[in-house]
């Protein structure tokens, strides 16, 4: 496509690293994931990719990293698995040495450095995965990492395919998150995720994962049966630019 996009170690004349941008595009191809946080809890919801047939299991979207930390990913699952292993190791080591949870911001900083290293070395390629990392150290935390090595602290975020509509939804509602009770917070995350669904696709226990962490609860991912608690009563809000249809 461009003369300057074969190596991540080559700048383009416009001052861009094309390989890094292509890596970020890989993230946008993955199924959507949404993260929100209040003062006391952080929630992730993610759309699982339907398996090829009923023979196969789902691709992992959500990784538990620590009793008080977990993440949802979008992009190359194999890259995500390597990152998850690294993060699990770091969390475990910190717990062993300091008898306390690794502060989420510190871990994310380390992951950011790991990402950045791959944008500067010849012969290596950037990680093709974006992560929404949630955790609880002294407060509920929500971070997003990027193949570029940048990381951000968020109140609400969405990544992956068609996630812009989810981000728009979150922008409209984020001011209410801080004091939201947990069930409302999960509902908001599901609503945001529902905006990314193509027409005809609904959030169901079969295709949605919910994960929660908070001061009173360890990181837990809810799939299938366990996710019914929220999904059975979930009704997606009509999309704002569509007319409401009476059924």
């Amino acid at each position, binding site marked *: 496509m461009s003369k300057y996009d074969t190596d991540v170690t080559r700048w383009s004349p416009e001052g861009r690293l094309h390989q890094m941008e292509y890596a970020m595009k890989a993230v946008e191809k993955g199924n959507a994931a949404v993260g929100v946080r209040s003062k006391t809890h952080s929630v992730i919801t993610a759309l699982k990719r339907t398996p090829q047939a009923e023979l196969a299991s789902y691709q992992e979207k959500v990784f538990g990293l620590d009793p008080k930390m977990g993440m949802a990913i979008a992009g190359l699952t194999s890259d995500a698995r390597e990152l998850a292993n690294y993060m699990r190791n770091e969390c475990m080591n*910190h717990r062993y*040495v300091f*008898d306390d949870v690794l502060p989420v*911001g510190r871990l994310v900083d380390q992951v950011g450095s790991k990402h950045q290293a791959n944008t500067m070395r010849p012969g290596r390629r950037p990680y093709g995965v974006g992560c929404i990392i949630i955790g609880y150290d002294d407060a509920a935390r929500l971070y997003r990492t990027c193949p570029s090595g940048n990381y951000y602290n968020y109140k609400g975020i969405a990544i992956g395919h068609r996630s812009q509509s989810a981000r728009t939804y979150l922008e409209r509602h984020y001011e209410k998150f801080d004091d939201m009770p947990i069930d409302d917070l999960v509902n908001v995350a599901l609503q945001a995720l529902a905006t990314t669904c193509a027409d005809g696709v609904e959030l169901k226990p079969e295709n949605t994962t919910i994960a929660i962490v908070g001061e009173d609860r360890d990181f837990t991912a809810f799939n299938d049966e366990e996710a019914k608690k929220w999904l059975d009563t979930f009704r997606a809000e009509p999309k704002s630019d569509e007319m409401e249809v009476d059924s």
Partner: protein
Amino acid sequence: MCTGAGTVAIKYNEGVLMASDTLISYGSMKKFPNMKRAFHLGSNTCVLTSGLFADTKFLMDDLRDLELEDMQYNDGVHVTGPKSIHAYLKLVMYQKRNDFNPSLCTLTVGGKEPGKEPFLGWVDSVGSFATDSCFASGLAHHFCMPLLCDATDNGKWKSLTREQATTVLKECLGVMHTRHTSTSARIQITDCTDAGCSTGEPFVIDSITQFKGQAQQDYL
């Protein structure tokens, strides 16, 4: 071979009170009569030492690296809480013992983080560790533990006030001065509360001179 004598520490309702004398002895010589044996780390943790002073200083310099790391990140996160320091120290001490290179000192780690219970832990030169509501190291363990336990056992420390705790510690160090030849009467008390750890100025206490049951001697 400069050594510090015993230290005492107890939890009280608002935090942790830790005390020691200010003497570093060189055998039976009272070499450094005005040394502060309390080391502050981060904003909420204090480590009191007894035993070989050189080994302690070396360990504390190592712990400063943890503080520096926090400073470098400058992200408002601190890994230097009292529980974390205690966990780190016990691993270091045990590792050194395994390498036949022990730090010949006993460390008492105390502190209070806002919103959490006061923390008091103890690590010795072979890597034994414990957390409790009162600790005494060195010979103070033999002289003072009954006094400390009386004041703090069975959750009594939760209703102990700072004044009561100070009285207990002064009494303990008074006993130490009387019974232990390497403890001076010049003591220093460190108070660890939500507001942080602060070590007071050293002051001289009275040693215990009246003993029940001891006949009065008239000297000619």
